[in-house]
């Protein structure tokens, strides 16, 4: 008889990693110095693995606000928002966030994970279809599992695949496209312009999970939709407080009716204790600072650019990221752990990301930065990465002669590729499509047109002949030989011609239609 615990005791990965000394997870931090440096095992370590993008977690103003809330409201709400767990603080934060995000309403939930669970489980019904990016955050996937909707997952940022799924879906069903704004492990953006375009074409709703984008992207820090200038077309936007907002919790913002429905109907909200007063107050203070100090975002993106280009100049691959999430690809899983360990030993905290979070053979060290990192700290990180990268043969011994600089997602760098410009892209792709003529086309032409085409062909041939190169002559002289080599193909030529001709006459109605 099977025991449910069997899989736990049979799970070897942890034991192997622990035995080889390469186990990188659950590292306990003993103290934090202005967030950018932490103490682990009594050692000071530069933290480049935190999501505290704006460096507000260590900000004295935020800390003080949290203290104040504890003094006023205590340490917990001891209940659900629906019943006894709503404080004036919660309502203030919701109003402020709705205003900040330009939405009708917002709802704060105890964690970011729960926010996605609540939204998905709340709004998805039995007859709905949800389209989700394969690399979406786990909370979205689990949320979708809780709802009863049909799930269609499209390949990461593959808009053709998404369109195909949308085409195949029941046109009468309710549809939701849900995607991460910034993908958490590889730092790339979703193709929101195309998603919005498809959503409008197939009458679907759009939700972005802006956990890593809120406070970071866009001129005011409102996230991916603001960056792309598509806020009006994005129906729901989700964010968390554990990243830029220096707290814990999440927010979902959108139309009042939707938010109100989630608030009353979704079990992850209704049956869970509300955000603690300290967390709400910290998030509120962080929001104040995010609104008042845009220079933090600018600094963060400067740092991101510096690090991307720094890594790339050494020969590292930072992938398609355009954000402060800077993945450094290592490839092999064990090498990744070894690199992580060596970096850790010289005082740099990174996050190793291995399959299944990424594809096999694409293990990476995820680094992410704070606006409060000093240039000295960053230079030290780069220096150690270069040294260890070379030692482990992740990068070559000498720097490559050139690299492609990153195009950081700064506000204003993205120009809306509207319908017109997409048409143009399609145009250049199709430019060479109509070479040559079919028999049918020729049959439709007037004798004058046919003559013109023939003269045109002579003109082109004359031009080519006038421009013959010595190499071309050589090629021409070998042409008979090549023909001889391909003679088996030519032997079929009469058959092919016969077939073509038959088709041609059939189509052109020389025989009476049945």
């Amino acid at each position, binding site marked *: 008889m099977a025991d449910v615990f069997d899989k736990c005791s049979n799970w070897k990965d942890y034991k192997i990693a622990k035995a080889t000394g390469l186990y990188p997870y659950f590292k306990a931090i003993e103290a934090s110095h202005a967030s950018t440096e932490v103490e682990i095992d009594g050692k000071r370590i530069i933290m480049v693995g935190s999501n505290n993008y704006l460096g507000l977690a260590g900000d004295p103003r935020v800390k003080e606000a949290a203290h104040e809330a504890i003094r006023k409201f205590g340490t917990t709400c001891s209940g659900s928002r629906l019943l006894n767990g709503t404080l004036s603080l919660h309502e203030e934060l919701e109003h402020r966030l709705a205003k900040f995000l330009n939405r009708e309403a917002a709802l704060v939930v105890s964690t970011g994970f729960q926010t996605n669970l609540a939204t998905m489980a709340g709004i998805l019904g039995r007859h709905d279809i949800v389209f989700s990016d394969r690399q979406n955050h786990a909370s979205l996937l689990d949320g979708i599992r809780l709802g009863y909707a049909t799930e269609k997952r499209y390949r990461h940022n593959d808009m053709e695949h998404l369109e195909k799924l949308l085409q195949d879906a029941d046109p009468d069903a309710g549809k939701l496209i849900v995607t991460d704004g910034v993908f958490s492990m590889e730092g790339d953006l979703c193709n929101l312009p195309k998603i919005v375009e498809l959503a409008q074409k197939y009458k679907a709703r759009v939700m972005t999970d802006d956990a890593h984008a809120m406070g970071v992207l866009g001129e005011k820090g409102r996230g991916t939709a603001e960056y792309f200038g598509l806020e009006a077309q994005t129906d729901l936007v989700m964010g968390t407080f554990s990243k830029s907002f220096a707290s814990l919790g999440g927010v979902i913002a959108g139309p009042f009716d939707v938010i109100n429905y989630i608030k009353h109907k979704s079990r992850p909200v209704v049956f869970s204790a509300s955000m603690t007063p300290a967390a709400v107050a910290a998030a509120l203070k962080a929001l104040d600072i995010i609104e008042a100090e845009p220079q933090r975002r600018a600094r963060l993106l400067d740092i991101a650019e510096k690090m991307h280009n720094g890594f790339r100049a050494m020969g590292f691959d930072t992938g398609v990221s355009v954000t402060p999430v800077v993945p450094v690809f290592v490839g092999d899983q064990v090498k990744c752990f070894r690199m992580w360990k060596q970096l850790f030993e010289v005082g740099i905290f990174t996050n190793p990301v291995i399959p299944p979070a990424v594809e096999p053979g694409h293990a990476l060290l995820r680094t992410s930065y704070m606006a409060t990192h000093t240039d000295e700290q960053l230079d030290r990180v780069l220096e150690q990465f270069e040294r260890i990268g070379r030692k482990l043969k992740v990068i070559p011994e000498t720097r490559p002669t050139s690299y492609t600089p990153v195009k950081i997602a700064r506000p204003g760098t993205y120009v809306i590729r509207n319908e017109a410009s997409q048409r143009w892209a399609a145009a250049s792709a199709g430019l060479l499509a109509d070479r040559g003529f079919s028999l049918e086309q020729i049959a439709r032409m007037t004798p004058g047109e046919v003559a013109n085409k023939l003269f045109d062909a002579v*003109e082109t041939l004359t031009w080519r002949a006038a421009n013959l190169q010595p190499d071309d002559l050589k090629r021409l002289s070998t042409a008979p030989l090549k023909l001889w080599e391909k003679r088996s193909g030519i032997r079929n030529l009469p058959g092919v011609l016969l077939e073509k001709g038959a088709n041609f006459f059939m189509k052109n109605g020389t025989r009476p239609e049945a």
Partner: protein
Amino acid sequence: MIPASVLEGARARHAVKPAADVDIAPVRTTSERDAFVRFQLDHYRDDPNFVPPIVAERRDFVDPAKNPFLEHASLQLFLARRNGKIVGRIAAIDDPHYNQFHNTEVGFFGMFESVNEPGVAAALFDAAAEWVRSRGMKSMLGPVNLSTNHDCGLLVEGFGSPPAMMMPYNPRYYPALFEATGFRKAKDLWTYELSTSVAPPEEVLRAAERLREEGVRVRPLNLRDLRSERRILKQIYNAMLGRQWGFVPMSDAEFDFIAERLRPLAVLRSELCFIAEVDGEPVAFSLTFPDANVGLKAANGYLTRFGLPIGLARLAWATRANDRLRVLMLGIKPGFQKRGIDAVLYTETLRAARALGYVGGELGWTCEDNHLMNRALESMGARRYRTYRIYERKV
């Protein structure tokens, strides 16, 4: 002094709105591309000074499969139509080599033709600007067809005669169209006219003589080994222009592409192309060609008519009677400039041209702020002849 931003704003307010009834469409098919090329011939039908390019050549020129420039650069052609009739055309160009070389975010446009209506021109420019902007560019330079290594600039002074070979030509109203749609001057390019009957100044002759004594050897192009000659030219070309405005280094394929077009002319009159060597090391070259435009004008855009080589025959016939030259380029390696090597090349060219019976020709282009070159040309008795202008606009 008015700040530039204010001027920019004022210009934008006064800028012409695109005409509403004009439909701008990207060129999608080969037949549309054909129409794009042939529109130029229709457009200049009544202009006696226009020299029609060979249509087949232009078609290859904008074909990514044929033109090596388009291996790295991207090009989008647009046609403006009103009631189905073509009224204008423009090409938008994204040349990453240029932006890498100058570390800029500049897009280009070129092959611009339009009827005399600011609304049509504005619509065309807006289409090009939007395409260029969609590729992340901040401003747009032009006209260049399709890079500064090909013909470029808008003729603003010196109308009234056919253009020299590989120089653009346009109606008189184009500068007004550009200025009405928010463009401002980026740079002027000058060409010079020189008659072979003008005797070179005394000091030029003396300088030439001195250099010859110092061991600067000038030799005509060696036709037997054009391949290695080409390598020499390319090396000097890329070394010399490196610091110049608008320069973008050419790949081998691009250089060969242009060289192949010029090869018949070089073979025809190889006496006019010189390479200067100091102690056996090639340091400078001067390329002068018979002005092919005389022949091209006779061909009227087609090598054949009704399948017969009528154009080709006309071209050959007109070329026989050609007495004009184009001094395409004079290049000196950095470090050998200001030593009078240009004077030697110049006197040699003049001597050869006279002997072959040419009466004069056009030199250029040079940048308006290339004082070294401009002074040298003027001191040789050349007269400023035409002004071409490169415009710029924010996108």
